[in-house]
């Protein structure tokens, strides 16, 4: 009895699979494009979401470590007023340190952060549009203590405004949790839709090839062999979508981080070069997984022996 005998396992021809896959994609035309478009949108949203959270986390981390309140003085302070304000601040309880920052120092810092484009050159001396400020570090970061200190600082004579990173950090954190939930739901729906569209596209291909599949089965093609062209089709859709999504995402991100839309207060954005590789790898991975799931799901009923 040779029941367990194995015929030689033939070679898989990638060329054959690719040809089958591209023929199907071409034949499905509109549906192929729709699949790519839907998956691509899904990936762009996913990418935006991940980048937003990554940036928030980075900034929240920085902020949380600071224990700092920035105090900005009136614009037209007389000579010597700054020292009085400083001593007033130092008298407050819960103040650990108070560092004076002159107009010139502020201008220097702005230049640094903007990469010195030269537009600040004529703002020196008399023309400096900035105000004197203090960086106040507090000792106790208990919420009510910080809140009290903020109120006391606002009440100091000559103080125009303060920016409390504490409040901002809290607000951003709450904001983050909120959008996490909304985005996760939104993403789930998008992925279900993408999968659905891909499955339908590949089902069309399977239907167009149903006679081929029958003949393949009669002449002894393995299920793997029958499935692979459709997996290739799904993967081509997935990879195309991920490449387009990556390009769009990278352009958007670079645009936002370089034009200063993202330069709100003390927020710093992660550099594009640091996120490029994980973003691209993530996209391609999600694209491939979606494509594979879509194609295997479409073929299930044809592969029962």
């Amino acid at each position, binding site marked *: 009895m040779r*029941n367990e*005998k*194995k015929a030689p*396992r*033939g*070679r898989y021809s990638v060329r054959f699979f690719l040809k089958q896959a591209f023929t199907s994609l071409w034949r499905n035309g509109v549906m192929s494009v729709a699949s790519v478009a839907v998956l691509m949108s899904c990936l762009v949203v996913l990418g935006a979401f991940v980048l937003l959270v990554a940036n928030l986390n980075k900034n929240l981390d920085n902020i949380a470590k600071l224990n700092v309140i920035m105090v900005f003085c009136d614009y037209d302070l007389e000579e010597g007023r700054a020292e009085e304000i400083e001593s007033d601040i130092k008298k407050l309880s819960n103040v650990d340190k108070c560092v004076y920052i002159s107009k010139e120092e502020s201008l220097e810092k702005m230049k640094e952060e903007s990469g010195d484009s030269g537009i600040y050159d004529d703002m020196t001396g008399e023309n400096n549009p900035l105000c004197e400020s203090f960086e106040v570090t507090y000792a106790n970061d208990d919420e009510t203590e910080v809140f009290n200190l903020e109120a006391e600082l606002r009440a100091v004579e000559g103080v125009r405004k303060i920016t409390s990173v504490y409040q901002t950090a809290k607000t951003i954190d709450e904001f983050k949790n909120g959008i996490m939930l909304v985005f996760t739901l939104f993403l789930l729906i998008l992925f279900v839709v993408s999968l659905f569209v891909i499955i339908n596209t590949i089902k069309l291909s399977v239907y167009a090839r149903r006679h081929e599949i029958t003949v393949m*089965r009669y*002449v002894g093609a393995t299920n793997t062999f029958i499935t692979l062209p459709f997996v290739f089709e799904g993967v081509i859709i997935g990879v195309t979508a991920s490449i387009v999504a990556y390009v769009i995402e990278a352009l958007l991100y670079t645009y936002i981080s370089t034009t200063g839309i993202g330069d709100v207060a003390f927020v710093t954005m992660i550099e594009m070069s640091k996120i490029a590789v994980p973003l691209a790898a993530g996209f391609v991975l999600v694209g491939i997984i979606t494509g594979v799931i879509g194609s295997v799901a479409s073929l299930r009923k044809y592969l029962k022996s």
Partner: protein
Amino acid sequence: MIDFRNVKKSYPNGTSALDGVDLHVDDGEFVFIVGHSGAGKTTMMKLLLREEAATSGSIIVSGYNLTKIKNRDIPYYRRELGVVFQDFRLFPTKTVYENVAFAMQVVGTPRSMIKRRVPAILTTVNLADKMNAFPKELSGGEQQRVALARALANNPKIIIADEPTGNIDPRMSIEIMNLLMKINKLGKTVIVVTHDKNLVDYYKQRVVILDGGKIAEDRVGGMFS
């Protein structure tokens, strides 16, 4: 070798198509299977192809026990068989050459081998000159010969033909039958399901008559001789 032992087959809807079939076919034999419509002939072919599993009994073909075969071994078992259908099942958008080559491609045959073998097989079925024609440019008989070439492509031991002459005119039928005889002479086991009593009588081969899912007769030499 094909061995059916007390094979019964009922379809899920309750129809009993085969009701205790015993049949033994040795390597290199030529067998006609005849019977009225609904006698169970196609069901026997489906069991042979392992498209359907027997409800009870045992089927052993070329060393494969079809009652115990694992799903993943079925494709390899099927490479032992070549099948021809009444309706040819050729691909209209592929040439004759491509139709035959397809059967080899999908079992992973190297390209160089395909290039060598397809013309040789087409010569066996006398179609070497129609290699680049499309099926619709061929007569029914010629199309069935392409299907036969495809069945032979992976060098199977057994050829199964379910009503191979059902869709072609009598003169062409002789041609197909002669080819099947020739293939049998080349050492392959050939099983032909047919309605055509004239053909069966003309060739004087072993005839198995199915009736109501049972073998009514099994003899050599045609039906009415």
